């Protein structure tokens, strides 16, 4: 179970929401402002955040923007006392998972939270995979990188050797090194790995 964060400027609301979520078996952590939240939470960890839209200082919508910009895997559910369609659309476009009216019904929130948990997990996994790929790519030398790209373009060894003005034997050595470093056994596997992370 990933972390659950609540951000609302009203202490009473925060407490009562925590009380309800406790009843549902969640262990949420409450923050009274966006700043408090940002200082305490690592944005790169998988989590769920329930944000109130209306807050002094940085409001929910601004906090959401901030998190999206930071590439955070945290799944965000927005709560608004008097939200309108424009606000909801804006929030969803920015990357919020859901936009719910406050006070939210516990049963509805649970559904949203479950969805958020899996999304957050996915985000996290994707993030981890991406991180792993980046680590692997970082081990390649510039020449190997060049070779890999030409391989992915589907070119034959002799063509690549000619283009890079190196012996075919040297190229084969580079290519073998790339496969090794990227931890794949054939070109198809390499292409799948790269393609998955590009999307």
């Amino acid at each position, binding site marked *: 179970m990933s972390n659950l964060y609540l951000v609302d400027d009203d202490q*009473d609301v925060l407490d009562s929401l925590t009380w309800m979520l406790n009843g549902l078996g969640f262990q949420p952590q409450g923050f009274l402002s966006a700043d408090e939240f940002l200082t305490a939470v690592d944005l790169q960890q998988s989590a769920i955040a329930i944000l109130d839209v209306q807050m002094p200082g940085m409001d929910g919508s601004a906090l959401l923007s901030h998190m999206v910009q930071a590439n955070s895997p945290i799944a965000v559910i927005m709560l608004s006392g*008097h939200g309108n369609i424009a606000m909801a659309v804006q929030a969803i476009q920015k990357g919020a998972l859901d936009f719910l009216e406050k006070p939210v019904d516990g049963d509805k929130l649970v559904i949203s939270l479950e969805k958020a948990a899996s999304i957050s997990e996915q985000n996290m996994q994707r993030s981890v995979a991406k991180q792993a790929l980046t680590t692997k790519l970082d081990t390649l030398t510039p020449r190997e990188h060049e070779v890999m790209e030409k391989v992915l373009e589907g070119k034959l060894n002799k063509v690549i050797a000619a283009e890079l003005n190196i012996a075919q034997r040297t190229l084969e050595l580079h290519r073998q090194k790339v496969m090794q470093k990227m931890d794949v056994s054939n070109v198809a596997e390499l292409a799948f790995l790269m393609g998955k992370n590009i999307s």
Partner: protein
Amino acid sequence: MLACSYSYADVQQPIRIGVLAFTEPEKVEQRWRPTIEKLELDLQRSFELVALPPSELEHDVSLGKFDFLITNALTAVSYKKDYGTSSILTLIPLNKSNPTEAVGSALITRQGTQISNFNDLRVLNAVSSDPNAFGGFQIYAGEMAQNGLNPFKDFNSLKFAGFPQQKLLQQVLDGTADIAILPTCVLENAIAAGNIPKDSLQVVLTQPNSGFKCQSSSQLYPYYSLSKLGKTDHQLATKVIRSLLSIEPASNAAITGRYQAWSATVNDSEVFKLLKQLQQWPFVTNWTSIFKSALPVGIAITLILLLGFIHHLRVKRLVVLRTRDLQAEIAQHKQTEQALLEQTKQFYRAQRVLLTGEMASGIAHELNQPLAGIRYLTQGCIYRLSDNQTELKEAMTKALQQVDRAQSTIKRFRYFCQQPSVMTLCSLNQILDETLSLMSAEFQRMNLTPVLTTEVIQLTADASLLQQVFVNIIRNALDAMENCTEPSLAITLKMKHNQVHINFTDSGSGLSEAALERLFFPFETSKEHGLGLGMIICKRIIEEHHGEIKAMNNIQPQVMTENTQFAGLTISIVLPLKEQTHE
């Protein structure tokens, strides 16, 4: 040397003598020819005699064409007055001893006509020779004038028959006319010459005169006189006088000239009187001379009148123009006033609606929070109940329903109070101008003139809502500068990257960090009677226009010192120029 050239010139130029002649200038010339010859003989100079009718003579006199003039006494006096001639000799007529009483007027009628006073003249048809004739008309006209009569009115009719004078006697005789005005002695001479039968005609209204052998109806006056023009050399005049005085009654000159002799100038005061008399009466008025003398005055008066009239017209025109201007101005004022009133009304109506909406919204929010708390807590309790506590669960679920009901009421209330905005293409600077004129009274009270930096910007927006924003911001700025010694407000309107930037910078008290953070929250106010909805309304409106509104102190609190406590606040608004389409 000088004398030489002078005399040489004299020899060359004949001396010109003008003579008054009513008719037949040749006869007049003949009459005076021997006298002139006598002068030529005595002075050894050539003379030129020019006989002219009265008007031509006067014209030439005015041009100074003569050296001497021979005229009747009245003409001499009138020239003396008008052209500065001086009378130097008076002619003594034949058979007369006193040159001052040489000629008069005689009224001649048929024998037997009864005329005892001026009233009897009214029924008579009169005839005279010429209105300029001395004895023949002017003396008697003067006589009548003296008695309050007008020869042109107080005869039945008056005709001028011209010359010779004998003809007039004939007309009286044959009844063409009843009475003739002629010089004295004309009748007596005619009878003596046998032209008129004795006792057929008589002189009426005679006046007694001693030593005058003809009958006269008037006072007597001197006869011809010789005048010299002002320019004529006195030595020449002396020679002429000497020559003329030496004429004997028996000489050819005197006989042909029909005079006795020349004498020194006699008293012409009576003639002057006559002249004055005649000039006072229109019938013999020398219109030309009066006209000439009155001309400059007349022109001046006319000019003054004309100028006065022009001035009057101009003033009138100005009055008309000014009145029209004033009326237009008044109308415009009224219109402006009306427009301003309408705007103010509209503004307050909009403000009321906005305030109601915002108040509803604020109250809804404030109620929503505790309701949310209740709902969460209740639902939290439900989740903690075990499955066999159905009774409690039921009641708590009902509590949830009550909360939902309260909430839906609040929501409906809020939607009811919400005012849909009306987006039209409007000019932002015009909205700003209207706002400033709406608030001009407040600026005057603060003794403040806002510094404007604007450009023309067209924008799709709700003009009345934007006006609300401007009014709220400006009013806040003015309130913040209430205790400020030098209030100033700068408003800039600028286009940048397809966005409109509007800044309001005041020199007021600014805001604390905490107040700045909660500036755009409902029911937050620093004012005693404030509702705390102004800025939230502004934010709501600007957000509705997809814009952003921000507030910042002009000087950051870190660098603020004692002296800079009135650094003021800047409210900046950014509005996208193009209408966003993602809604």
